[in-house]
């Protein structure tokens, strides 16, 4: 029986106590006992003190005798980023403002009914539309993120992005343009980034802006890892998609300031390995900045198949372009003025056995890497291919043409470099000399004897002696 009575009393207590819950608090009823708001909301008068009454304050009446006991544990501090204080507003209004000006008349139940809407703030602060206005000065009412310490990561993640952030190009260049416009065309600074700071901190901006420490608007922000709950990514700018961007980015109107937004020196060094100084205009990766956008190294458009044997004109016209990615030692792997290494190099495997066609066609000049005498003639001599001194008429090496000796002029003028890989000058001067031999004229169409006599008369004397035609 006694147990049943206890249960009944307990149920009765719960039933009585339940209406005293926070949502059911009856402001209108309490107004009769406390006509001044400050009686309970003492923090209104003194910044930094609790805005809501403590449970002990309530228990002064709700002690179970005077009034029903309550189980309210007190109001937790609000998780807010508002930088509003009642005393400051009171002072700003010249003590003219009353509570009901913002909170409205006290009526009904509940403790949250009286929180003014943001539009109420906007009414007085000349803000046409809270939140969605591009000109909104968020910092007027809101703390920067790194000062809004009561907010959790989830609170920050739940921030709704303003409509401006959904505009095309906002994430890329739009936000910068907006800030520059706000700064009157000058470099944006702390003033312009103050609104951004409500939701963002340095960490957020550094996801793209590796020059954050040097950008006043970003440097003005505080540090707060919670800002990374809003992930962003950097889309490749349209300029980078342009044809020939790879070759042109060094000198087609791009400034290092632009590049430094997304790139660090490490970005450049992915390709510019041979010329690291080219990255001097950018900042190096460091703990206070991100590593930046990392390009992928790939061949420029000019490196089409066969480029290995046809790159000469391009390489000599613009060696600085090659030097962007290639070290000189790479060139020297093939281009050495001594093409007789024991290790295979420029030529494909087995080239020695099939070099005649390349030598005759002269797609590239053999003499640039091989001295015709030291390299070609010495080997041809050992192979028995050079002219045998006592058998010029009878050797018959060119037996593919029976009358080669008497009609070789055509072949000789086309393949003179091949001829001299076996023949000495004296072979030809046996017949082609004005001073000795048979006096056959070796000079072909367009031969400028006067120019040659002026430039190198000594050479003329080899055949003509001192009697150079046309010379006094």
């Amino acid at each position, binding site marked *: 029986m006694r147990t049943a009575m206890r249960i009944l009393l307990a149920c009765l207590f719960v039933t009585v106590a339940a209406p005293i819950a926070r949502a059911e608090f009856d402001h209108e009823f309490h107004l009769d006992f406390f006509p001044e708001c400050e009686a309970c909301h003492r923090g209104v008068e003194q910044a930094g003190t609790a805005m809501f009454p403590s449970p002990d304050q309530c228990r002064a009446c709700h002690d179970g005798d005077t009034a029903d006991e309550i189980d309210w544990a007190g109001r937790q501090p609000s998780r807010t980023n508002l930088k509003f204080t009642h005393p400051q507003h009171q002072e700003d209004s010249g003590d003219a403002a009353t509570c009901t000006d913002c909170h409205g008349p006290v009526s009904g139940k509940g403790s949250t009914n009286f929180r003014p809407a943001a539009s109420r703030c906007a009414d007085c602060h000349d803000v046409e539309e809270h939140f969605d206005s591009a000109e909104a000065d968020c910092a007027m009412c809101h703390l920067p993120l790194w000062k809004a310490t009561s907010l959790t990561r989830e609170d920050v993640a739940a921030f709704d992005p303003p409509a401006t952030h959904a505009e095309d190009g906002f994430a890329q260049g739009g936000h910068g343009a907006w800030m520059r416009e706000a700064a009157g065309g000058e470099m944006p600074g702390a003033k312009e980034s103050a609104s951004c700071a409500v939701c963002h901190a340095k960490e957020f901006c550094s996801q793209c802006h590796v020059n954050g420490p040097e950008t006043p608007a970003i440097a003005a922000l505080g540090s707060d890892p919670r800002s990374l709950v809003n992930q962003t990514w950097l889309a490749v700018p349209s300029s980078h998609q342009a044809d020939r961007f790879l*070759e042109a980015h060094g000198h087609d109107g791009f400034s290092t300031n632009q590049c430094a937004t997304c790139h660090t020196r490490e970005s450049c*060094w992915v390709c510019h390995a041979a010329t690291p100084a080219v990255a001097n205009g950018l900042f190096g990766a460091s703990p206070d900045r991100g590593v930046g956008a990392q390009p992928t190294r790939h061949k420029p458009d000019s490196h089409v*198949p066969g480029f290995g044997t046809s790159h*000469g004109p*391009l390489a000599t*016209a*613009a060696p*600085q372009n090659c030097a962007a990615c290639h070290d000189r030692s790479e060139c020297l792997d093939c281009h050495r*003025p*001594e093409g*007789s290494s024991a*290790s*295979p190099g420029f030529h494909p*495997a*087995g080239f020695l*056995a*099939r070099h*005649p066609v390349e*030598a005759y*066609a002269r797609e590239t*000049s053999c003499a*640039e890497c091989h*001295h015709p*005498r*030291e*390299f070609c003639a*010495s080997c041809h*001599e*050992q*192979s*028995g291919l050079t002219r045998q001194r006592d058998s010029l008429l*009878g*050797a*018959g*090496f*060119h037996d*593919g043409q029976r009358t080669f000796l008497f*009609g*070789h002029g*055509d*072949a*000789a*003028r*086309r*393949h*003179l470099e091949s001829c*001299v890989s076996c*023949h*000495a*000058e004296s072979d030809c*001067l046996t017949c082609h000399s004005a001073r000795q031999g048979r006096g056959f004229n*070796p*000079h*072909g*169409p*367009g031969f*400028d004897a006067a120019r040659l006599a002026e*430039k*190198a008369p000594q050479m*003329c004397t080899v055949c003509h002696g001192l009697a150079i035609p046309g010379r006094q």
Partner: protein
Amino acid sequence: MTNCRRGRRALFAIVLLLAGGSTAAASPDWSVRWHSAARTTEFRGVELDSIPVADAVADADGRLFTPDGYAVRCPAGSAWCYFYRAGDVERSSPITSELDVSAWRLGVPGLRAKVSARAAGDPGDTAVWPGTDPAFRLREGYLEWAHEFVEIRGGRQFDPGRFGFIQWDGGRLRVQGWNGRASAAVYGGLGLARGTSLSATDPALDVLDEFRPADRQRVLGFEAAGVLPCANVRAQYLREIDPRAEDFVTERFGAELDTRVGPVTVNAGSDWDLAFGEWGTAEIDATWRAHRLAAVSAGARRYRPFFDLWTVWGAFSPVPYKATHASLALGPWRTLTANGRFEHWTWDDTGTTIPLVVTEDDGKRFEGRLAWRPDDRWTVTGGLQRVENAGASIWGGDGSVGYRPAETLDLSLDFGRWDRPIELRYDDAELTTWGGSVRWAAAPAVRFDLALRHLDEVRDRPDASRVDWGTWNASLGLTVQLDSDRTRGVPPAVLRIPERQVPR
């Protein structure tokens, strides 16, 4: 003083300077690349022989042969008939060792020293590999001081460019401005011969006992380059003077241009032989690339042989050929690429009037190749080649299979077969090769290269000179790259680049 001795003295002086600089500087940086290789290769030439006219025998058509079947040529009035028989197999086994040393941070900001030297020898039993006498050669040995706007270099040096390698012992001054968009250089000194590190006076270049200059030529060159908004341009002038006669050895001017016309890259260049008053070699190429899908290139070029005025060859009026070419590369597939190239050229009129020897007036070249890379480890390639040219032709194909089991190891097998007739000699040769190679980066600073290849050659002739022979060629190379600190001053991003992680 021989060239070899001069080279040693220059090397010694630079080593002393390096040592001095190293002492003066707190911590000099240096880089050494040493590459040594040994090779053994066989080749087989021809050997002139003769028999008395009386010993020659005639076949049914009246053609003369030796009794053992070699076709002979018996000059009128001569008591002897001549013929070529296949020469002995000659084996050459060269060993070359190349050393490149660079040093910087020598106590003076911007000061750098470079030495590049080569030693070579051939202990082979019969043939001598070219470029082994003299055994030691100094390719480069200079000190360089570089500032943002000025670069001064003194010593033995070379510059590859439009005229090939310009090599000289002397100085070079280069200035640049406008953020590197304009530069000019002047250089001069005593020149070296083309294509070798020896001077033109060196007896090693006098293989055929010809005229040999008594003194080295004086070199003077200018170069100017600019990076314009629309193009890169470069112009070069070079003159070499024989100091004894004050005659020109060479005088050349060259210019090059690289620009963009819409989506097409165009590069062009030309040089002029001012000493001969002749237009030299020239080319123009246009390339259009559709991202990774395809690349089309077309162009024209003119090739004219160049001879210096120390020889009489230029006075024999060599003629140029003019060529047009086009190439296409396709890569729309992720693992397969294909490319082909075609070129046709025509020789200028030679002005000769004796039509006793008929040679081809033009030539053409076709090359096509497929490469299949199913993954990062396997590479399979195959190609066809056909070149029809005056003098020599070739047609055939080759293929290879490459396998990379690890980042440090590359294995490759290859094969090829070609017919290579020679126009001016009765010789239709067939060549078949097969072999393999291994490239192994044993350590970050050490790399080995090994290649082994078999060649079968058939020189098809209707007489006893027909040769059918085969041989093995092998080569072994060792490359060591050492640096004072492989990572000091090198950006981490550079070190992460895969091809930087093994010595080249």
